[in-house]
């Protein structure tokens, strides 16, 4: 029951500045796609447009064959389009577990009344939801931290909590924005393996914005290259990284971007 999302001639403007120009692309079902490009290529804007956090100036976005161009972000999330943020956004004073549980929003919940009055339905749901959360935390190696308050966690773990919140509801379509940024080599590897494992289990569609080529090549079977708001090409990692346009635009600049 996985979906694929499709953008057609999507243009996004911020005042005079055009962040996305006539972009048309799609994320194939059940495939992990890497989105690469130098800073300011429009990668994050693309994610925002797909997840509904930015209004598109022109063009359409389809989820499966449903037009979701004008659907507000929270509705898209309920349809299973869940995204993570480049700058971690967490409930700073709540525990890791609660942060992850927040992600269960799109799953069928007991009504507010039975939640507030702690009726039986709520107890049952609570038990099962906590199981879900524990599994994800297990997967990302956070089990030991589950009762800790997130503002006391090291940055790497905070990132993982963000990822866990995204994954806990087993969404059909996941958009991650540089999930490995700030992780050390080992962390990146673990994260990649974890994502790969989840993908094996649920076969969800995943788009990852990422600078780190190793990470992309290890994880992604499909890569989309962008530059200055335009879609350049899509293909297997090998094809894309081999392509001269990508060579110049991406490596050319990103090297001194990293320097």
């Amino acid at each position, binding site marked *: 029951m996985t979906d694929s999302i499709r953008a057609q001639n999507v243009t996004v403007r911020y005042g005079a500045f055009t962040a996305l120009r006539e972009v048309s692309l799609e994320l194939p079902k059940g495939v992990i796609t890497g989105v690469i490009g130098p800073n300011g290529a429009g990668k994050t804007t693309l994610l925002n447009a797909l*997840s509904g*956090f930015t209004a598109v100036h022109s063009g359409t976005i389809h989820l499966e064959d449903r037009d979701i161009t004008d659907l507000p*972000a*929270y*509705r898209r*999330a*309920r349809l299973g389009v*869940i*995204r*993570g*943020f480049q700058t971690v*956004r*967490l*409930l*700073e*004073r*709540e*525990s890791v577990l*609660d942060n992850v*549980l*927040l*992600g*269960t*929003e*799109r799953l069928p*919940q007991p009504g*507010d009344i039975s*939640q*507030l*009055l*702690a009726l039986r339905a*709520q*107890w049952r749901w*609570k*038990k099962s939801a*906590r199981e879900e959360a524990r599994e994800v935390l297990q997967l990302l190696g956070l089990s030991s931290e589950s*009762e*800790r*308050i997130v503002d006391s966690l090291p940055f790497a773990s905070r990132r993982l909590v963000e990822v866990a*919140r*995204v994954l806990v*509801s087993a969404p059909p379509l996941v958009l991650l924005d540089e999930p490995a940024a700030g992780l050390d080599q080992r962390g990146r590897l673990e994260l990649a393996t974890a994502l790969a494992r989840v993908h094996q289990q649920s076969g969800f569609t995943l788009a990852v914005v990422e600078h780190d080529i190793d990470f992309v090549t290890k994880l992604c079977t499909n890569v989309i290259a962008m530059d200055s708001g335009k879609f350049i090409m899509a293909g297997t990692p090998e094809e894309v990284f081999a392509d001269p346009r990508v060579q110049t635009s991406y490596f050319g600049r990103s090297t001194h971007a990293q320097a």
Partner: protein
Amino acid sequence: MSSSAQSLSSAIRISDRGLRWRHLPAIFVAVALALVPLLFFGDYWMFVAAKLLAFGIAAMGLQILYGRAGQMSLAQGSFMGVGAYTGYILSSNGVSPGLQLLAVIAIAGVVALIVGLPTLRLSPLRLAIVTLAFGELFNWLLINTSQFTGGTQGAPVKPFVVLGLDTSYPLDAYLLTLAFAVVLTLLALNLAGTQSGRRMAAIRDTEMAAISVGVFLPKTKLIAFVLSAVFGGIGGWLYSGVTGFIAPPDFDLFASVFLLAAVVIGGSRTVIGAWLGAAFIVLLPEGFNLIGQPNLYALAGGALLAITALLLTDGLYGALARLTGMARTVLSRKGSIR
């Protein structure tokens, strides 16, 4: 250590025996505190205790709205008024306390919906102003409908007589308010462990994350607002039963500001904080009575409020948590339980 809202809610969780045991002490402390008046207090202090409980219930409501959902309200006192006057008007038409309670809950909720709907888009400060405006309107209404409300002269409230309790006796009033306080405290604590509670926290900390997982913010804001109003209404209704007299000044802007002060001073992040704050605000004047200087309160009260707020920037709860934290470490160094 985890925030007490969770620790206590986990203490009442069915699952997680470990947590449950760890927080038994907290529960015993609460029970002990609740017993103090019964064992040691005479009529006057029993009355103060009952008033404190009613006030604390309203403070808990504001804690949900301000501390958990991060929405600032200057109308909690007015919602106490909505509860109190609803009860009064009904009781003067011979409606039984049970039905009064239902009406109080319903009307407080509906009023909150009406006030809340237009404010959904507003930033916290602006929400504060709208609630302030509502409070002023409500007070004006009380004064200008004297045929129903008794106007500026206030209104004597028939004591509640339920299950052989008669709130005109401080002890009975205390027992009744205590029953409500216990139930509502458990509900407030439970909120922390629910998805509704997390949605509210998300509105407070990061609306983006809330939206990204599919939270519809306006609905959550409204629920928080209505919930706090219902707590306020019940608190006000009980207050009217405890004191047997209500008047507009009991529910004016200052009443609301003092409730906010209670929540902030107590430590806005936790339900316990609301109780500590309520205790501080209610007992401060009584403290001056104890030292035989009842008339000094007017002068020193304000200064004390400011100083306490400055010294304990994390609120009384923060200080308490630090103390218990130290105690724990000391104990564990002595290698005792834990």
